[in-house]
């Protein structure tokens, strides 16, 4: 049997909500009453899931045994709900509506799909799993929190809209793909991993990067002077990345599987071992 838990927002809270409890693994195996009694920190008050959501559980027959967590679906304007999907390790969490800050932060597994916009710090410090945003994301997607030298260390973030500033800042591993535009300082101080941006990007992409790759499918008018041109050609790993993103649902144009790029090494302020690829 496949179990599906649906939470539909009834009353929009007036204060920000700390929604760490809204995780598939927290709700699997629980009854409607038990789920309704899970805590939600609303401002400085502890309320419950049932105070704000209508909870429904449905089960559908399946040919295969399902020992994993239930699929969780949230519906409503969750702009004030922070930390949705934080530390998620398995299962699927689908949100039909916008979400607040820190969605998917510290994730280590599972799939988080947001059919709406996401606030700042989407997927910050994550180490695994997949986040798909069918909308825009805020600043600091896949980045490190202040005071940490490294941010995202694994997993995949796919943003089918636009992203804000400092996307992938200090990332250590993983892939971030932005279909639309991106703000300033994409890939700032990254240690490894890949940031791919389809649309226009702001200034200083790749600034202070130590290693890793920033791929710009809409090349900017200028790049930082601390990047040096290497060559123009077809990076062998691009078809793998392109195929991997396509399989994950990132709508990559079919013809780009064998694209030609201009490659720049940089940031030479940090040793020059990073890579900036501009679609040629």
């Amino acid at each position: 049997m496949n179990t599906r838990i649906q939470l539909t927002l009834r009353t929009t809270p007036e204060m920000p909500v700390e929604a760490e409890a809204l995780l598939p693994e927290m709700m699997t195996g629980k009854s409607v009453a038990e789920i309704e009694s899970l805590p939600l920190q609303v401002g400085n008050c502890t309320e419950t899931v049932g105070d704000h959501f209508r909870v429904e559980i449905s089960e559908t027959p399946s040919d295969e045994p399902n020992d994993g967590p239930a699929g969780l679906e949230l519906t409503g304007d969750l702009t004030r709900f922070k930390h949705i999907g934080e530390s998620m390790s398995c299962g699927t969490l689908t949100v039909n509506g916008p979400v607040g800050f820190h969605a998917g932060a510290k994730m280590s597994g599972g799939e988080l799909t947001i059919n709406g916009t996401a606030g700042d710090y989407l997927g910050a410090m994550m180490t695994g799993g997949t986040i798909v945003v069918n909308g825009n994301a805020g600043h600091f997607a896949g980045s490190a929190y202040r005071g940490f030298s490294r941010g995202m260390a694994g997993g995949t973030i796919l943003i089918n809209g636009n992203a804000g500033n400092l996307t992938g800042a200090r990332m250590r591993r993983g892939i971030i793909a932005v279909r639309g535009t991106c703000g300033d300082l994409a890939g700032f101080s990254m240690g490894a991993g890949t940031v791919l941006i389809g649309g226009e990007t702001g200034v200083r992409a790749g600034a202070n990067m130590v290693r890793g790759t920033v791929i710009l499918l809409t090349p900017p008018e200028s790049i930082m002077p601390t990047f040096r041109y290497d060559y123009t050609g077809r990076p062998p790993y691009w078809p793998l990345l392109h195929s991997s993103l396509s399989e994950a649902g990132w709508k990559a144009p079919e013809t780009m599987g064998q694209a030609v790029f201009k490659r720049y090494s940089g940031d030479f302020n940090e040793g020059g071992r990073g890579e900036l690829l501009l679609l040629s």
Partner: protein
Amino acid sequence: MRINNVEIVDTFAEAFPMAATRVTITAKNEKWAMEAALAATGFATSVIGCGIEAAIDGVSQQTPDGRPGLDCLFFGMSGDALEKQMLKRIGQAIMTTPTTACFDGGVDECEADRREPLKLGGKIRYFGDGFQASKVIGDSRYWRIPVMEGEFMIQESFSMVKGIGGGNFMILAESDDAALEAAEAAVESMREVRGVALPFPGGIVRSGSQVGSRYAFLPASTNVAFCPTIRSRVPQTVLPPGTNSVLEIVIDALTYDQVAEATRVGVRAACLPGVLQITAGNYGGKLGKHHFHLRELLG
């Protein structure tokens, strides 16, 4: 037992466990994939003289980078021996070929608990002299090695299993032409079986060997019992009357079933006019772990 009037001897082939792996070589087009595959699997007929046994398995159904590719099989006496040879062949034959990339071809026909990692890309990467970089895509790490042509990409870790080496059968015929025609027909059928390597040239051995020699410096020598030109001088000859030529086909594969299937289709295809008998080579059954009884396979 007779098939198309060819006697199938009541005997068995004796085969041995070997460390095995499958590698997918991709390139800009089929031509360059084939160049790399031929170079990488060349001079790999026997572990005794070549250190490794290898052959092209077939066209890759799906390649990680979407380019044309060929799957190649490699067999060694041990995991260490296999790794040592593979590093040489990848470095000298695959990486040197224009436009190639090298991936784990997978061993899906073997259970997961039989697979061990074989770190090849993780060692070839040092050719990059410190300028190499890696990318993790999905669950795999790929090394990007800067080369004069551009970049050579190789997967860090490949899958190794305990395969089987030394499956065989011999075609005893009235003439060399008849033996060759039968062997060619057998090879054509056997090459349809995936996971099977026929490591000798064209898949056929014209100079099968026996263990030992009268010369102390030789570990093996011509298989006198099957040599027609000295039949009258060899008391232990096994050649039936009328035999004027013998060819052997050696079979390596990833699984027992693949050796069995290849033997089955090969023997059937070889039962042509001019062929008198099909037999197999063994060591009395006391050395090799795997036995392939001809009549059981073909019954």
